[in-house]
C-alpha cells in the first residue's frame, strides 16, 4: 500500500488553473521509496482485501434480498432497538428491523440508484464532450463555458435545489446527480477527442472521405469506451454518496425505501440514546465498497500506465 501510494486524486482543471501548476504535477517526480522492498508484494495485500470485500458485498447484494425480501421490512416492536447479539449480528433499529439485513438491502437500492445516476451523467457528459471536441470552434467554447458554469455551483447545493422542487423519488435523485455530475465526463471525452482528431488514422479516414458520423462511430467511440467505462465505475461510489447524502437530509428517496441514507437518517434519532449501530452500520456499507473500489481503481491505473509505476518503483 505504501509503495503504491497514490498521487492525490486529479482535481478537474478549474478555469483558474494556470500553466505553472499544470506543468508540475507532484506525482511526476515521485521518488522511489525504500529500494529494497519488493513493491509488488507490499501493494498486493490491500488489492486482494479490496477485491474480496467487493466480492462478498456483491454476493450479499445479489443473493440476500430475494431470500429476505419481506424480513427487512418486518416491523417487530418486541425486538426494537436491540444491541448486536447472536440473533441480530448488528442489532435492530427502532422498529425492530434487523440492521444487517436492511443494510444489505439498502446497499442494493443505493447501488442501483447510484449506477443509473452515474450512467445518466456519463451519457450527458459523453455527448457534450463528443459534440464539443468534434465540432470545435464556437460550439466547443460555448459548451465549455457551460461546463465551467455547472462546476461553479456546489454540486450538493444544486442537487438539493433540484430534489427539493420535485417529490422525493429515485427519479428525482437520478436527475439531480446526473445533471450535476456530467461535467467530468464531458472534460475527459472532449480532451480525448481533441487528441484523437490529430492522430494519423483519423486524418486518414477523413481524407479518405469518411463522414463525421462514421469517424465518430468507427474511430472515436472505440477509443473513448475504456475511458468512459473507468469514469463510470469511479462515478458510481460518488453517485451513491450523493444519493445517501440527499436521503440523509430527508430530501432523497422516499422514507419507506431501505436506502443507506434513509437508514442513517432514521438511526440518527436514537444515536443520543446510545444506539450507535442503527446509524453507523449502514455508513460502513458506504465506506467499505467506496474504499475498496478506490484501491482497485488505483491498482488498475498503476497497471494501465506503467510509466507512472516505473517512476514510483525504480
Amino acid at each position, binding site marked *: 500500500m505504501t509503495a503504491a501510494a497514490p498521487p492525490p*486524486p486529479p482535481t478537474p482543471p478549474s478555469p483558474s488553473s494556470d500553466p505553472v501548476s499544470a506543468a508540475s504535477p507532484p506525482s511526476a517526480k515521485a521518488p522511489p521509496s525504500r529500494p529494497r522492498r519488493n513493491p509488488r508484494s507490499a501493494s498486493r495485500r490491500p488489492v486482494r482485501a479490496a477485491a474480496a470485500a467487493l466480492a462478498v458485498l456483491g454476493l450479499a447484494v445479489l443473493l440476500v434480498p430475494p431470500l429476505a425480501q419481506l424480513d427487512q421490512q418486518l416491523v417487530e416492536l418486541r425486538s426494537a432497538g436491540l444491541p448486536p447479539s447472536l440473533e441480530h449480528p448488528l442489532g435492530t433499529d427502532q422498529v425492530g428491523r434487523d440492521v444487517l439485513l436492511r443494510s444489505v438491502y439498502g446497499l442494493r437500492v443505493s447501488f442501483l440508484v447510484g449506477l443509473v445516476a452515474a450512467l445518466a451523467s456519463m451519457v450527458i457528459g459523453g455527448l457534450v464532450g463528443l459534440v464539443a471536441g468534434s465540432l470545435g470552434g464556437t460550439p466547443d467554447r460555448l459548451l465549455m463555458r457551460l461546463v465551467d458554469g455547472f462546476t461553479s455551483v456546489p454540486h450538493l447545493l444544486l442537487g438539493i435545489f433540484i430534489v427539493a422542487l420535485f417529490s422525493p423519488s429515485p427519479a428525482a435523485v437520478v436527475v439531480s446527480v446526473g445533471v450535476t455530475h456530467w461535467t467530468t465526463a464531458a472534460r475527459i471525452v472532449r480532451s480525448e477527442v481533441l487528441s484523437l482528431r490529430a492522430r494519423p488514422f483519423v486524418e486518414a479516414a477523413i481524407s479518405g472521405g469518411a463522414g463525421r458520423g462514421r469517424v465518430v462511430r468507427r474511430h472515436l467511440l472505440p477509443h473513448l469506451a475504456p475511458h468512459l467505462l473507468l469514469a463510470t465505475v469511479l462515478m458510481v461510489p460518488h453517485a451513491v454518496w450523493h444519493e445517501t*447524502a440527499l436521503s440523509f437530509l430527508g430530501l432523497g428517496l422516499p422514507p419507506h425505501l431501505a436506502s443507506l441514507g434513509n437508514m442513517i437518517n432514521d438511526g440518527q434519532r436514537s444515536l443520543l440514546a446510545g444506539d450507535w449501530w442503527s446509524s453507523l452500520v449502514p455508513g460502513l456499507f458506504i465506506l467499505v465498497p467506496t474504499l475498496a473500489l478506490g484501491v482497485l481503481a488505483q491498482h488498475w491505473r498503476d497497471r494501465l500506465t506503467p510509466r507512472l509505476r516505473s517512476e514510483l518503483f525504480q
Partner: protein
Amino acid sequence: MSPDPETASVLPDPATGRVLPDPATDRAGHGAEGDGVKRAAPAARPPRRPSDGLGRAIARMAAWRAAFAAPLLLAVTAGMFALAKASPFDPVRQYLGDRAVVTDPAVAERIRANWGLDRPVLEQYATWLGNLLRGDLGESRSLHLPVGQVIAERLPWTLLATSAAIVLMLAGSLVAGTVAARRRGSWLDRFITGGALANEAAPVFWLGLLAISVFSVRLGWLPAGGLTDAASATVELGDLAAHMVLPVTVLAVSQSSWLVLYVRESVSGVLREDFVTGARARGLRERTVLVRHALRSALLPFLTLLGARVPELVTGAILVETVFSWPGVASASVQAALAVDFPLLAALTLLGTLAVVGGNLLADIAYTIADPRVRTLGVG
C-alpha cells in the same frame, strides 16, 4: 594587451563589432537598446516594476473573473427560476400546509395574487431579478422572515465554523503530510495514507455521527450539537467554543484527505530535488530544510487547488451543520429545501455560487502574489 576591465564592456567586441551588454550601462537606460541583443532586456527594467505589475495583474484578473461571474450568476438565477416553474409543488398550497384543505379558495387566490404568481412567467422572473438586484431577496415562506435577515443572522456562524475548519485543516494536513513524506514507507506513513484514503471514502455525515457517538454519548466530553447549551439564554465564549469543537474538527477532517495526500506527494517529490540535497549538505537543520526549503516550494500549486475546493467545502458545511444543528446558512438551505421555500433556497444557492467564484478569485490572487511567473505569463 588585455583591456582594462572597467572599459572592456563598452569596447566593441572584436568578433562581432557589437557592444557587449553590461548591467551597469543597462540600468542607465542605453545598453542593449539599439543593437538588438535581447537577453539584456530584463535587467533594464526599473526595480519597482514587479509590484506595479502585481496590482495591474490582480485588477485584470478580478475584472476577468467578474466578466465571467456576471453571466454565470444570471444563468444560475434563470435556471433556478425555470426549475421552480417546472416544479409540481404549488407554493401557495405548500405555504398553507394542512390549512390548505380548509382555506377559502378566494383567500388562496389572494395570496397567489400577492406573490405575483398569477402573472406571466417572464414578468415574474423580471420582477424577482429586479428585486434581487436592488438587494431585496424576498421573504422566506417557511421562517416568515426577510431572506436578507435570515442570511445576516446565520452567515457569521457559518463563516466562523468554516474558517476555523480551514485553519485546522491546513495545519493538520501540513503536519501529517510532511511527516508521512519524511518517513515515507514507515508504519506512520502507512497509517496516515491509509487513514486519508479511508477518510476520503467515509461520508462526512457518518463521520459526524461517529464523533457524536464517541465523544458525546460514550465519553460525554463534548456537546452533541447546537450553538449553546439549551438552558443558556446568551452566547458565552466558553460554551460556544465547546460546541464548536466537534463540528469544526469533523469538517476539517472530512476536507483534509486530498490535502494530506497532496502534501505528502509534493514534499516527498521536492525532498529529492538538488536544492534540498544542497541545503542538507550545507549542514542545515532537518527542520529548516523541511519547512524553509521543501514545504515552501511544494506548496505553491496548492493555493489554486485550495480555491478549487470551495464547492466541497460548501457541501461539507451543509452536511456538518445539519448533523450538529449548527445555526448557519448551510443548514438553512436544507430547512428551506424541506419546506420548499423557494426565495430562501434560491438566495442560498446564489450565495454558494458566489462563494465558489470568490474562492477561485482569491486563489488566483494569492497565486499571483506568491509566484512572480504568473504575472509575466498572464492568467485568463
